[in-house]
């Protein structure tokens, strides 16, 4: 983890003939899908689903972080495999009128109501002394609470066995079974919930005292070295960083063996107005003292310049996730779901994500917004994952984010429905996903694992066997070291959010930053919010704590409930 968190690089390649400014990107307004909560799995639904199915993390993936950053192809293969693990069918805990009924694994995961019932039980059982001491929950207590949540409905007088039988008998179609978990917007794997509820003392502390600032100082760690190849044309510039330097530490930047005409500056801060702390010829280099957050900017007046930027710095030792009891485990996973109603006379909009269409949306002067769609469709149940609620309302799954903590900055995957599912971002769909059945072959996918793109190949390694995907990837590739890309037409619907990468927004979870500001405040959050601007992630990148379902309030309400009962 230390490696990736100390070397993240943001780069801006500005190649303008007269060294003039690049056009400003349009102004987006919101961060990705963390807004509305919706109907949750009911108590009877949880009884039928049973204990949520653990996310079977690929424990070897963490060691492949650098490989995935450098290879779009490896990244996508890993992402598709995670998709298959997330969508794998899981049998229900009790029989229904639909023989052999299953739901995709993510639909067994826990939502806000589950978290509330589970935490309430855990916290109550601590007793007055345990609550006063903010004791941790034992594994046995956690196991018991999850189990009691499953059986909670059977403790309610209004749910006798006969009513539960009638309930299961009403689930007579696959779509009805799919509706058992409700119109969830956000759901968490069991280990994600386990970690979150176990973190309640830290959550309370952050609610009371606030989260650490974007730059959290601390004792100087050992010196880190970052080397970044630089290749510039005349008037070119490249910004590398950020680098976080501790009090008492320093940063030295230099490009050896470069002729005169190429300069280097160390800037304090990530904003366009960041102050210059030192400047020198690149070959000479310069040094600044901590504490602070620094960027290194290289410019050249020469016809061309190339070399390796060498940055040595001493970062602070920090608590990476101060509002949690450490970072989430690899088996933590979350989904954010975008359901669309089918029976209100509103067809499903469709979006063209081919290279030409993306080029139009990302062209200079375009607003980089997905808009209302390029067409419309009425996909059948075999073509789009569909659910029916007890009320009769039907919904299609238009898109979904899947985030797994198998990597330091999470494996950030998003799926969206497409009427042409086997082209561009669906052209490399593996057999493991196709074999899941009809609807799941209708979703395209993109993935991001870091703030910046480190694959030097704009085509991501797909030029030969998936040319439409290669072409689409070229349109979103902003050069090696540029901001990474991944955006869902249905979920990332705010203005400007065709330029998105998930990672940049999620770094701010529980930091006090409003999600909408991440995309709109270009001064504080460069690259449409995609740039790394923090050296700590208070909620380990999980917005569900203070955005969306606001799980922190579940903890706060429960604690206040018992405090006021004394």
């Amino acid at each position, binding site marked *: 983890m230390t490696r990736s968190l100390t070397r993240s690089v943001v780069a801006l390649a500005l190649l303008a003939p007269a060294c003039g400014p690049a056009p400003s990107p349009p102004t987006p307004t919101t961060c990705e899908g963390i807004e*509305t909560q919706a109907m949750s799995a009911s108590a009877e639904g949880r009884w039928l689903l049973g204990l949520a199915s653990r996310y079977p993390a690929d424990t070897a993936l963490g060691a492949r972080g650098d490989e995935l950053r450098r290879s779009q192809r490896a990244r996508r293969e890993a992402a598709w495999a995670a998709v298959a693990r997330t969508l794998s069918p899981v049998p229900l805990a009790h029989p229904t009128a639909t023989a052999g009924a299953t739901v995709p694994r993510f639909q067994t995961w826990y939502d806000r109501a589950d978290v*509330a019932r589970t935490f309430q039980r855990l916290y109550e059982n601590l007793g007055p002394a345990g609550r006063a001491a903010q004791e941790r929950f034992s594994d046995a207590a956690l196991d018991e609470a999850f189990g009691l949540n499953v059986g909670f409905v059977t403790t309610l007088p209004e749910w006798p066995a006969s009513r539960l039988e009638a309930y299961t008998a009403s689930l007579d179609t696959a779509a009805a079974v799919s509706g058992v978990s409700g*119109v969830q917007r956000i759901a968490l794997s069991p280990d994600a919930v386990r970690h979150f509820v176990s973190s309640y003392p830290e959550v309370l502390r952050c*609610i009371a005292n606030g989260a650490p600032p974007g730059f959290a100082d601390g004792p100087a760690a050992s010196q880190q070295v970052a080397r970044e190849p630089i290749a510039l044309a005349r008037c070119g510039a490249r910004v590398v960083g950020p680098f976080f330097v501790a009090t008492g530490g320093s940063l030295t930047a230099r490009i050896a063996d470069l002729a005169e005409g190429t300069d280097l500056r160390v800037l304090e801060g990530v904003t366009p107005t960041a102050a210059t702390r030192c400047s020198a010829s690149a070959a000479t280099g310069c040094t600044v003292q901590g504490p602070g957050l620094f960027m290194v900017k290289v410019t050249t007046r020469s016809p061309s310049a190339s070399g390796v930027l060498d940055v040595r710095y001493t970062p602070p030792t920090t608590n990476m996730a101060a509002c949690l009891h450490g970072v989430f485990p690899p088996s933590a996973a979350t989904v954010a779901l*975008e359901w669309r109603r089918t029976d209100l006379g509103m067809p499903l909009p469709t979006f063209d994500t081919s290279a030409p269409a993306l080029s139009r949306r990302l062209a200079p002067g375009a607003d980089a917004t997905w808009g209302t769609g390029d067409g419309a469709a009425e996909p059948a149940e075999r073509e789009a994952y569909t659910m029916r609620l007890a009320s009769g309302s039907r919904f299609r799954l238009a898109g979904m984010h899947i985030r797994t903590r198998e990597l330091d900055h999470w494996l950030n995957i998003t799926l969206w429905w497409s009427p042409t599912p086997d082209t561009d971002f669906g052209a490399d769909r593996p057999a493991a996903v196709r074999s899941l059945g009809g609807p799941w072959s209708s979703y395209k996918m993109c993935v991001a694992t870091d703030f910046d793109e480190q694959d030097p190949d704009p085509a991501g390694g797909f030029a030969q066997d998936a040319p439409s995907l290669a072409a689409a990837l070229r349109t979103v590739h902003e050069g090696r070291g540029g901001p990474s890309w991944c955006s869902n037409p249905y979920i990332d619907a705010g203005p400007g959010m065709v330029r998105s990468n998930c990672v940049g927004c999620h770094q701010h979870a529980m930091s006090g930053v409003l999600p909408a500001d991440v995309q709109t405040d270009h001064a504080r959050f460069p690259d449409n919010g995609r740039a790394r601007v923090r050296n700590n992630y208070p909620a380990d990148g999980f917005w569900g704590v203070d955005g969306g379902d606001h799980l922190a309030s579940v903890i706060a*309400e429960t604690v206040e409930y018992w*405090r006021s009962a004394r």
Partner: protein
Amino acid sequence: MPVASDVPAGECGSISPEVAAHVTAMSTMGWSALNRSRGMMMHGCAGAARPQDCLATVPLVSDADIGASRSAITAAHLRLLFTSTNRSGFWTRSSADGRFVGRSTRLRDLAREADITATGAMYDPAFYPDNSGFMYQPGGRNCPMSALTTGTPTTVAITGAGSPCTGSSASLYQHLAASLDGGDYWASSAGTAAWDDGGHAPTLTETPRNERWTATATTSITLMANTGAGFSNVGSRRVPTPLQGDGVISPSSRLLITRFVDTAGDYQGYILHRLEASHTGSAIMASTREIARYCVQGAKPGFSFDERFIAYHHYIGGGDTVEADARELGFTGADDAGFEPYTTQGSSNIYILDLQTGRQTRVTTMGPGQYALYPHFRSDGWMYFLVRTLGTTREHVVASDAALLQ
């Protein structure tokens, strides 16, 4: 009992079997049951085995506040939730879990015993039955409950920069329903209302209507459809509610209760409607059907979460009902010397009405110049109401378990 010809067709005391069927259904499927199944933590219920055992540590009312003998029901309890020295305007409403009480722009957090000021709001606090949020006027500003429950806020910005709230089309005297099963629900405007801010000055009768409730009066029904990403206003229909106003929709959105008048404009009582609303795609069909008529006097009512009861206050001291009111309080009549102070200072009492049986029960016996107002239920059946007293800015908020004893 026959009805005068100048009121909407229907019969006082008529209660369709549909009412009982609805109450039975809601006892297991309504918001009270649903909130229980979601583990809603009711304020003051930690360690309580039954709702009746809640608020046991909250002091009973006494002569130091509203008077020790204000309960009209022997076995019932009136508990003093808090006293404020700040006078409020218009109604008082509380969160489904009973933790927050909204009076004008002050939200009382009973758990923290602290006030939260709603900046940018003016009046009409209201809370969703699922405890997901609250609303203020003007502008129908919808706010998440997490704005109140996270941390130790002293203010919450209802409007302006940094506000967690969003605007809506809901207008004054809003009653907030919510979808029980993720399906669609129906919202209703109050129609023509009677602004009710009694008790600041002698108030002897129900407050007058702002506009006439005419024979062509209508109530607007709005389809709030679950689009998958939230609930959206898909469209509205107007349904005839002749000579009626002050419409209140039930928490499940399946019932609508209105107050009705005769052609002279005199209040006659309440009409309970079944909301017959459906849609095919975005095409909306909506109508109301009377299923009960209760000819009792009272102001704008509030439904219990199980939809078995309504609660309301009734002003006394004058008007057509003064004689009956005096007798009901145990006086020989309006001329009784003991009742005389009521005829000058006024008063109001709280009532609950069992929708299945039509039985009305008086909950309070307030003194002259003492006004028990704006009763409303929390999810477990406890009821909160406000007490104003002439000549003082001091106001009390009181909890009653009367409905739990029925």
